[in-house]
């Protein structure tokens, strides 16, 4: 605990000396104002609070070439409108204390942001000098600012400095001396307000002429009244007679859009300054990003590229991942099963069953699709790292808007492509409770990585060379269901209300192998942990249910349960085993594979995939895949839905909706496939 006394608000400047020039440092936060202040004053500074405020006040003195100066570091402000205590302090100091010169510190690497304050400062009577800081940062970003051109455009002196390296400070001091000595003619170019508001400004000026209290300039007060500045409005209300104030108010009421017109004029002015003085990098990363984005964010080609990338991911999975998965399934899991069967030939039946059917065939089958997961993680990690995923969100959001889905619903839904849980959590951004509830309800329709991996495992087994088109179609089918639900949501809840979502695209960059490697490692590890815990436990439970109560599968609890739900499964073309596998995917989607592993087993002669191919018709296979994509979300997602809706009623309703959608869609697909002769 510090024993230092708590600074109190001084009634008057603490160490400012009269008869020596007073310089004020103004600027937005984080432009290096304080660095410049410390550089100039060194230890001759005092820190306190502004009178009546908790805003820090820093002032000091310094000497340059035998001349002494007072220096005040004004609070960082974006403008001189009374939006915050800092802004009121800064402008009141400039207007009341009337410093001899104001140094406006700007960030050379982002003049667009810094110049707004300058646009307000040049309209005040106090002389200003622009200290263009962070020249080094601008140079690193390939931005070149021409100080002479900016000076000519602004009509006030501009000095490039790099405060962190003490560079340019002497030049700044020489310019300040010249300004203080009256050697610099002050002829600032002022921002203009839109032409249709100039007459309004003139009318306000006429009304307040001669009635503005000192030290405020009448022009500035008229502008602030039009901007709706609360402090100045109060001041003028007190200063004017009731009739006069009513007349001013009448004009202001008719032009309540003046705030935007004035700010707009300032941004036009900033745009002109930047066009004149800033040379943006013509080559390199920015140009490359722009060229790539002409395609990647194009309303049509952007979608084609996105669909192509998705197709490429599946192609890579089937070309590289599936053979490895198949090898692991037949040679490793099948081989280990055979080995364990031989080793445990004299062991109790339950031990052999647990190891071979429960652990190896169940959880082992899930582990075999690690190569598929690694490919998913690596490709999506690569796309994230090179900056493509923001473009994917942009083009998808565009499409969703065309179909009437509300923008605020989309971003949480987009997050669902990785995992539905953050998608559910992300709906907190939606202000309207009913809209949020309905977005939560449809979020699980977004195909998550686990569901896509299950599809990537099963599609080649069921459909061989047509797996790519089937997988693609399944993702598209899920998205169509999502968009249909979203459109209904939009019409019922948002009632066609439009909202905007504004993104700043990151620059494309060369992906970092280490970053991607780390990401793949972390996600793969997480998958293996999941397989070794939840999925293993579930596989053991499924196995136990398949042998209890008397060690016979045909009379087991699992078969009894399977036979009980089979009538519903039959509508969808699923036998009891596929129906049980589908239900078992509730705790985690990968459990569908684990359950099939337990029920069908693996051997070196035929892996799980081959067994499935020879067992089920194309119509049943397609129906099962559709059901997998649409079935009740996993347990973690249901828990997130319960947490976010804070209602078991909503949660159970969602489960019911997904059951209905699954049964309806899968039955439809199954019967359509039969009609088509599949």
């Amino acid at each position, binding site marked *: 605990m510090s024993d230092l006394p708590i600074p109190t608000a001084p009634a008057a400047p603490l160490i400012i000396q009269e008869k020596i020039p007073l310089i004020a440092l103004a600027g937005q936060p984080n432009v290096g104002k304080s660095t410049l202040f410390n550089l100039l004053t060194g230890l001759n500074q005092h820190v306190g609070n502004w009178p009546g405020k908790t805003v820090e006040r820093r002032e000091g003195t310094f000497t340059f070439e035998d001349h002494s100066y007072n220096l005040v570091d004004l609070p960082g402000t974006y403008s001189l409108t009374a939006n915050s205590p800092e802004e009121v302090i800064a402008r009141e100091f400039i207007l009341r204390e009337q410093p001899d010169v104001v140094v406006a510190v700007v960030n050379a690497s982002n003049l667009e942001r810094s110049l707004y304050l300058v646009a307000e400062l040049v309209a005040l009577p106090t002389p200003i000098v622009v200290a263009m800081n962070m020249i080094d940062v601008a140079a690193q970003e390939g931005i070149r600012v021409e100080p002479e051109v900016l000076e000519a455009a602004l009509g006030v002196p501009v000095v490039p400095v790099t405060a962190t390296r003490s560079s340019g400070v002497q030049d700044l001091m020489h310019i300040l001396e010249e300004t203080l000595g009256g050697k610099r003619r002050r002829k600032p170019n002022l921002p203009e307000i839109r032409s249709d508001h100039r007459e309004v400004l003139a009318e306000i000026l006429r009304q307040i002429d001669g009635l503005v209290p000192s030290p405020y300039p009448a022009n500035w007060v008229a502008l602030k009244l039009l901007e709706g500045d609360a402090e100045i409005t109060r001041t003028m209300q007190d200063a004017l007679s009731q009739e006069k104030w009513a007349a001013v108010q009448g004009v202001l009421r008719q032009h309540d859009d003046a705030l935007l017109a004035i700010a707009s004029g300032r*941004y036009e002015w900033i745009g002109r300054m930047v066009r004149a003085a800033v040379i943006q990098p013509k080559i390199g990363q920015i140009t490359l990003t*722009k060229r790539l984005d002409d395609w990647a964010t194009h309303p049509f080609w952007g979608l084609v590229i996105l669909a192509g990338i998705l197709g490429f991911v599946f192609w890579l999975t089937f070309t590289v991942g599936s053979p490895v998965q198949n090898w692991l399934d037949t040679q490793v899991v099948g081989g280990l099963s055979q080995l364990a069967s031989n080793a445990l030939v004299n062991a109790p039946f339950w031990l052999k069953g647990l190891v071979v059917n429960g652990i190896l065939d169940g959880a082992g089958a899930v582990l075999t699709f690690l190569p598929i997961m690694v490919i998913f993680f690596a490709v999506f990690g690569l796309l994230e790292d090179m900056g493509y995923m923001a473009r994917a969100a942009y083009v998808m959001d565009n499409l969703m808007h065309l179909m009437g889905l509300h923008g605020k619903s989309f971003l949480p839904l987009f997050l669902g492509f990785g995992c539905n849980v953050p998608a559910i959590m992300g709906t907190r951004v939606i202000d309207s409770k009913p809209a949020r509830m309905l977005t939560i309800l449809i979020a699980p329709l977004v195909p998550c990585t686990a569901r896509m991996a299950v599809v990537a495992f099963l599609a080649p087994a069921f459909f061989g060379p047509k797996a790519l088109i089937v997988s693609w179609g399944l993702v598209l089918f899920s998205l169509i269901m999502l968009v249909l639900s979203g459109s209904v949501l939009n019409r019922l809840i948002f009632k066609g209300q439009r*909202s905007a*979502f*504004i*993104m*700043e695209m990151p620059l494309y960059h060369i992906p970092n192998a280490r970053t991607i490697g780390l990401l793949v490692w972390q996600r793969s590890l997480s998958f293996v942990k999941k397989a070794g815990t939840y999925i293993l436990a579930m596989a053991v439970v499924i196995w136990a249910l398949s042998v209890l109560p008397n060690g016979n599968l045909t009379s087991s609890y699992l078969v009894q349960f399977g036979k009980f739900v089979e009538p519903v499964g039959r509508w969808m073309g699923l036998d009891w085993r596929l129906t049980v596998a589908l239900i078992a995917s509730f705790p985690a989607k990968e459990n569908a594979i684990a359950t099939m592993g337990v029920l069908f087993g693996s051997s070196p002669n035929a892996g799980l995939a081959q067994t499935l191919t020879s067992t089920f018709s194309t119509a049943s296979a397609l129906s099962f895949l559709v059901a997998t994509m649409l079935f009740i979300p996993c347990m973690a997602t249901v828990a997130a839905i319960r947490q976010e809706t804070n209602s078991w009623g909503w949660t159970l309703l969602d489960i019911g909706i997904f059951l209905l959608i699954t049964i309806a869609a899968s039955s439809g697909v199954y019967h359509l496939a039969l009609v088509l002769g599949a």
Partner: protein
Amino acid sequence: MLEQLLNEIRAGGTLETGKLAARLGTTPQLIEAMLEHLQRAGLVEPYINCVDGCQGCGLREACQTRGDTTVRLWQSKPEG
């Protein structure tokens, strides 16, 4: 220019600072500065409701701050 930007936002949809800059004949940096202005004026709000942080989010690159308080995703606020 600020009014044009606001009109674009009020028309709704997905907007991107680079494309907005091209449409309004200015730089993406000026669009960002204006968005921050509109944010201070309470007309747009930053999209910062990523409750679980950035882990696993495909938009991480787009919205992570650059070491200061810059927010790089915005959404319009309901009118009224």
